[in-house]
């Protein structure tokens, strides 16, 4: 191994099967020091499996996984690693302070528990059993647990799922701050907004393969689809996935077509993946959603129902 340039996280040619299911199929991914990489993909895409390999919980069937140049299956390699437990996975009878002390005790120079709880707005809850925390408090505790050991690499698995806006923003700030201090972050999400808010580089995974690995801007332009719903004159509800909803609506209005109950929202990732993988997606959507902006509702082949 060259002592010159070792990536923070290196995954090369990794395949991992669970019985007949191929969770990861020849995946390669390299994360440099100080990078903040977002991993996007629907549930079951292979994100969590990838994280479990990087954190040494599982071993790949083929390929190599390295953490700061070392095999993460070796406990010593994991002294540079921090990660979040799943929200539901906190030991419910232990107190907040006890859990943080326990995790911090594994590291040579942990953040003092009081200080950490203060940072995450949990100072008043130190004596509470984790089972009695609200969803948002559990999320904050989970992220705090990932940072208590002053790790160099942090794996965040769905860090803000189920949080309200203010809770989410506070956690995002904490993650940004960690990153600004030179830390490497690999985070998964199935929320486009989350990755959009944090990541510089985005890796899109589905069906165990890397579909795209590029800068945030490039990926956004590829998956930035909008979903437009409306009820036409005949009372039929229509749904269109369009790259530019403004243009679509402008054309819709100009065309004079009758419609009501217009609704526009960002396409969910699964819908966006339909765009990205162009019909070979596994979410059961018919191929060819891309309704051209100039197409009128009556003639759109992308109309569903």
């Amino acid at each position, binding site marked *: 191994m060259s*002592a010159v340039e070792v990536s923070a996280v290196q995954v090369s040619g990794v395949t991992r099967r669970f019985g007949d299911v191929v969770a990861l199929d020849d995946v390669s991914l390299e994360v440099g020091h100080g990078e903040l990489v977002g991993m996007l993909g629907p549930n079951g895409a292979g994100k969590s499996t990838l994280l479990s390999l990087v954190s040494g919980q599982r071993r790949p069937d083929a390929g190599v996984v390295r953490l700061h140049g070392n095999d993460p299956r070796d406990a010593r390699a994991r002294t540079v690693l921090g990660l979040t437990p799943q929200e539901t*996975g906190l030991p419910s009878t*232990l107190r907040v302070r006890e859990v943080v002390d*326990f995790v911090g005790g594994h*590291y040579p120079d942990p953040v003092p528990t009081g200080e950490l709880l203060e940072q995450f707005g949990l100072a008043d809850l130190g004596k509470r059993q984790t089972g009695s925390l609200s969803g948002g408090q559990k999320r904050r505790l989970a992220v705090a647990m990932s940072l208590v050991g002053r790790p160099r690499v942090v794996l965040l698995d769905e860090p803000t799922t189920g949080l309200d806006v203010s809770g989410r923003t506070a956690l995002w700030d904490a993650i940004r701050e960690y990153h600004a201090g030179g*830390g490497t972050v690999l985070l998964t999400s199935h929320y486009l907004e989350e990755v959009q808010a944090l990541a510089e580089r985005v890796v899109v995974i589905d069906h165990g393969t890397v579909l795209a690995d590029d800068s945030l801007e490039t990926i956004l332009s590829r998956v930035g689809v909008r979903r437009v719903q409306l009820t036409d004159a005949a009372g039929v509800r229509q749904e269109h996935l369009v790259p530019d909803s403004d243009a679509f609506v402008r054309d819709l209005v100009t065309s004079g077509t009758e419609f009501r109950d217009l609704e526009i929202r960002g396409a969910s990732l699964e819908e966006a993946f339909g765009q990205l993988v162009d019909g070979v997606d596994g979410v059961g959507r018919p191929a060819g959603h891309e309704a051209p902006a100039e197409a009128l509702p009556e003639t759109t082949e992308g109309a569903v129902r």
Partner: protein
Amino acid sequence: MSAVASRTTSGNELDDGHTQPFLTLSWLHLKYQFLETVRIPIAVLGNVLFPSLSMFFFVVPQTTVAGNPELATTAVAALGLFAVCSASLFTYGLGVAEDRQLPFYPFLRSLPAGPGPQMVARVLNGGIFSLFGLLPLILIGWLFTAATVTPGQLLAGIGTILGVSVPFVLLGMAIGYALSAKAALPVVQIILFPLAFAGGLFLPPQMFPAWLDAISQATPTRAGRDLLVQATTGVEAYALALPVLAGWTLLFVVLAVVAYRNDEGRRFR
């Protein structure tokens, strides 16, 4: 939220990294496991009550046993060992299997600590709760039967029973890491009761026919029982008791480690 990562370096210096010292980590895991166990009082209570109740039902009413110092002490020792075996096999066989199904478990395995400290902590934690179970048993033996030990014999007995519990804790862990909780329960029962019977924990082995006695002497329960009886009454154990127990311990260490290593991902097959 101030800089958590103030000391983070983006370094590519290749320091190997060292985990915290083994003893520190073992103590950490012991504290964690003890708190987790003790916060569910019914589990602790069950451990404490079971041997005491058996004592009241099966030993105290039998005056020929309860009135004879040597027989009564032997009965307390045998029941104590059964309690410890059962606590070890159930707590570890079932407890570990259940833990592995908890979502916190993968997180535990990714902390910078090998399997060693966690296993040491489990063994010690098992010992602590076995002691909780033994205490009332010893009191009942003292107050309601003719069982008698010198303070030296008592200490030797407690030390021996904790030592003897080690292979059973390891066997429990091997089962817990190898099987799901649903499978672990019947397997523990299938293993525990024949072992306890053949080891003379229910009936004194003096009542066994020669062929059964021969089998009995090869079991870890019999070896443990006789060593315990020797420590508390002075009646010499058979010569092979210690090697037999050591042999089983070694085998169970290997099984537990192999089961732990193979554990990852098994649940998802």
